[in-house]
């Protein structure tokens, strides 16, 4: 036993602590009580304020690696948009997000009883995101003459009257990276598009300057953002389920930092002596 223990380094113990912190809470059916933050309330209010039939362009700009964190956020926002009877135009500027975006949009649309081509459409992937964002500003029908499945978009009721960003009530970039900065640079600055973003928690900090400047009108991030949005929607989802696991993991990392400092201090004191 002592031989086994001696083979464990501090690194192994750190890994074990993180593993337990991330997995054990998932097995417990406990939901943390919390309230929605101001930024989540602002995003929710922005969607709520849109009249029925308004067009929302949702860009699924993420990779498969971040899907576990993005999925509850995307689900909650899509549920809200469909509940408000908004027309949804889905697309992806990341090759890998294309299939996941289509699956997510279709799943929630079916759940809400929406019809393809009338209530929503999925336009698929366009390479080179800067030129795709700019091209939508010039003419969306020209940029996307067919949808993801190869059907002509011209006669689709969901796209009726949509020419460029002027007819789009809000653009929502669902992302795990810095894609909203490109939407700000090319869609907001040049075409005055109204932008909101849904993203992983780690990326939120880098986008706060755009939120405070008003270039991004709403932002929700991470599993906590998803849990808060589900609270406002009054619908259970993956955010509430994952919040405990993420929060326990955060506290575990905090404990690891404290232990690291204590160990470091004791080591330094031993040296001084």
């Amino acid at each position, binding site marked *: 036993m002592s031989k086994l223990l001696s083979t464990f380094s501090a690194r192994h113990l750190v890994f074990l602590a993180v593993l337990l912190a991330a997995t054990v809470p998932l097995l417990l059916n406990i939901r943390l009580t919390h309230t929605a933050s101001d930024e989540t309330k602002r995003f929710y209010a922005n969607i709520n304020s849109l009249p029925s039939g308004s067009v929302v362009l949702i860009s699924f700009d993420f990779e498969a690696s971040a899907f576990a964190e993005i999925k509850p956020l995307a689900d909650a926002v899509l549920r809200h948009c469909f509940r408000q009877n908004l027309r949804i135009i889905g697309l992806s500027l990341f090759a890998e997000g294309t299939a996941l975006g289509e699956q997510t949009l279709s799943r929630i649309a079916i759940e809400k009883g929406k019809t393809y081509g009338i209530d929503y459409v999925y336009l698929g992937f366009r390479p080179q995101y800067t030129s795709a964002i700019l091209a939508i500003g010039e003419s969306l029908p020209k940029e996307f003459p067919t949808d993801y499945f190869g059907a002509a978009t011209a006669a689709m009721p969901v796209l009726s009257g949509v020419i460029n960003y002027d007819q789009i009530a809000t653009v929502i970039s669902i992302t795990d990276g810095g894609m909203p900065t490109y939407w700000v640079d090319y869609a907001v600055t040049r075409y005055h598009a109204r932008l909101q973003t849904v993203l992983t928690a780690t990326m939120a900090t880098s986008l706060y*300057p755009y939120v405070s400047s008003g270039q991004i009108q709403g932002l929700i991030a991470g599993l906590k953002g998803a849990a808060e949005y589900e609270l406002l929607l009054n619908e259970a989802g993956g955010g509430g389920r994952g919040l405990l696991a993420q929060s326990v993991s955060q506290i575990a990392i905090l404990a690891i930092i404290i232990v690291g400092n204590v160990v470091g201090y004791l080591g330094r004191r031993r040296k001084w002596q």
Partner: protein
Amino acid sequence: MISRLAWIATLVTGLFMVAQYFIKTDATNAVYTTLLDYYQIIFAVSMIVGGIGLLKQHSLKVQRSSQQRRYSLITIAAILFMVIAAVIFGTGAASPYQWAFNNLQAPMQATTFSLLAFFVASAAYRGFRVKSAPAFVLALAAVIVLVGKSGFGEMVSQQLPAIAGWVLNNPSTAAKRGILIGVGIGSVATALRVILGIERSYR
């Protein structure tokens, strides 16, 4: 000569793209949208070139009898499978391409990304040592944001999430904005250097 032609093309295109932002006519719009189309076409073709380059590189690795040849074989097989499956069966929901994406690529990427949590924790254990006043401020900010933005923030204190929000919206945003302004000025300078032919990476 070719280098000079490339520079002239860069100069003309660069100056046109700047000018068309301010001068909006049907003619400039037509050229602008055509350029956007070409931009996407060139990017799509570059992806094919990249794929062929990757295949070539791994084929060379397979020919050399190295210990890593099995990984190169797996890479080649994966690339060929995805391309052939997409060409023959399409990329629809029930296609082999989609099956491989959902059941192989997505879980593998998620697994690799999940490892990040372990490395972050390990790095925090070794690297977050408070040895000076700036290190203390950094650690304090990290603790406030970590707890304040977690699900336990409100349980610890009703004010903690608001304090965490203040840290993110004020000192953090101020620093980030400074970096962004610097990046913006740097981007303009680099663009001017490319347009004027001072920076010629294509030479």
